[in-house]
């Protein structure tokens, strides 16, 4: 295809590139500024916000780490790992039952599980606090694990179910002929075939859990089981005069998910596109 380069066309292209690049700067500059501030001193920060740090030492990062970030990070990692395993496993388990096992009331049960997608967590807040207080789980790690799992099961089941429906029936018949029980068929045959969608759901769940704030703030305030999003706000209120330390904490919180995004970009895009597009 031959494109004629008209004068107007060139102008349009120049404008388009200027716009795309300006937007990239608007997105990246605040993040760069945040990272650089983690290396500055308070005086430098107040002096000229655009200047580079004089001394590239990791002192602020060490301070942030020692002032609680190590604890928040540990809680975040624990909650993220356990709730990811629980959510994806329970959802895959349910998706298998809904798509490949002959069970009564299949359509109703599917609607009941997926219907949870429509409900906003904020709406359930007050009763959930009472419920967790009654169960003695308020202000514990368990509260977050349960909430993150329960509230993400509908979405995760929805994604895995959509994928399992499309797997050919012959697979199940072959498994049956080999004398495999339901459990073996699920664990050894169907789950491995679902690897692409399982990867997307794992990544999406990690992104969600790592960044969740509402439940984390209400169910763990001041109890030593705070996650990074809540911990950062405590760091801010406790050491709010030592800004560079707060910035260092923010970088420590942001870095893992940004790296994860770059490593898993393809799968995240696929998961999001499938999940919302179906």
């Amino acid at each position, binding site marked *: 295809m031959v494109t004629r380069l008209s004068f107007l066309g060139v102008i349009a292209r120049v404008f388009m590139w200027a716009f795309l690049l300006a937007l990239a700067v608007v997105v990246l500059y605040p993040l760069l500024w945040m990272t650089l501030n983690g290396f500055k001193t308070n005086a430098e920060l107040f002096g000229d916000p655009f200047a580079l740090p004089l001394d590239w030492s990791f002192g602020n990062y060490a301070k942030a780490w020692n002032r609680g970030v190590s604890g928040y990070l540990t809680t975040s990692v624990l909650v993220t790992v356990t709730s990811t395993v629980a959510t994806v496993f329970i959802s895959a388990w349910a998706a298998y039952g809904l798509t490949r096992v002959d069970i009564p009331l299949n359509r109703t049960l599917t609607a009941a599980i997926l219907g949870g997608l429509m409900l906003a967590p904020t709406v359930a807040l007050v009763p959930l606090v009472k419920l967790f207080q009654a169960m003695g789980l308020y202000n514990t790690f368990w509260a977050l694990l349960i909430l993150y799992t329960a509230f993400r099961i509908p979405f995760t089941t929805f994604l895995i179910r959509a994928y399992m429906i499309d797997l050919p029936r012959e697979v199940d018949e072959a498994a049956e002929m080999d004398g495999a029980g339901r459990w073996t068929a699920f664990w050894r045959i169907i789950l491995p075939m679902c690897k692409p969608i399982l990867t997307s759901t794992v990544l999406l769940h990690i992104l969600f859990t790592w960044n969740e704030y509402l439940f984390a703030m209400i169910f763990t305030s001041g109890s030593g089981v705070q996650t990074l999003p809540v911990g950062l706000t405590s760091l801010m209120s406790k050491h709010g005069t030592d800004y560079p330390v*707060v910035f260092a904490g923010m970088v420590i919180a942001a870095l893992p998910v940004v790296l994860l995004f770059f490593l898993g970009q393809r799968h995240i895009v696929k998961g999001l596109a499938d999940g919302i597009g179906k």
Partner: protein
Amino acid sequence: MRATLRRTLGLAWVVPALVLVGVFVYLPLVQNLQFSTLKWDIYSGEQEYAGLDNYAKLAGDPVFWSSLGNNALYAVVSIVFQVFGALLLAALIEGVRSERLQRALRAIYFIPSAISLTVAGLLFYFIYEPNLGPLNHALRAAGLGDLAQAWLGQESTAMSAIIAMSQWQGFGYSTLLFAVAIQRIPAEIYGAAAIDGVGAAGRFFRITVPLVREMTGLMAIVTLSGAFQVFNEVMVMTAGGPDNSTQVLGTWLYRSGFVRNNFGYAAAIATVLFVITLGVAVAQLWVTRRRRVEW
């Protein structure tokens, strides 16, 4: 008989998911309705039946109405930037010839969506800060020092400042999804249009827009639903202040229940939130049920 038993045993597959969703998602929803009819002090633990008093109080609460207004403003701005803006941007990116550049642009724009709203909120809290904040510094350097102000500290600008941060954080997410939708359009359609002499604007309005209509509808609904659930960014940046000017339904619910100790009133706000989000969810079902665009 045995067959029925076997079918019933099959329910074991769905029981864990059903129990968790039932106990922690549906049950609280029903309880919330009941709680909203109570006058309830958390500390004394006293509860008494109050009928629709909480709702009557809600109707006469100016902060409730301004919160609802703030959510609506949030929704309108987000739809402009994260649905229409993102669609246009995605089309621009897909028009870039080099695939590597396309990928790089999509990834760069997405980064803010990967970091938590807490990090993004704190970051912009500093950017808007009147003395050390780079925004005021930049304005002064550009000779626009008169415009420098305490962005989050005054009623006239605080809400807009929070909404602006939200757009920065969220537009890359919808751009990425629109880019995926555009990639699904067969290249031949664009090729044919180019041969027919249809210009870039024509291709955008006559091919891209109609063929990603389904994604546009879904994004509008996801964005709308998100705008009424806003909580984190407001909590981190202003906690609803100054003088309740940035209060949204989520933060007003939190404040009423957990700061001012009135669970019944908070539950009534939650009911309003529920009705709105349910309405949006029903619209979502309606959009997805419609026949999918074929190509």
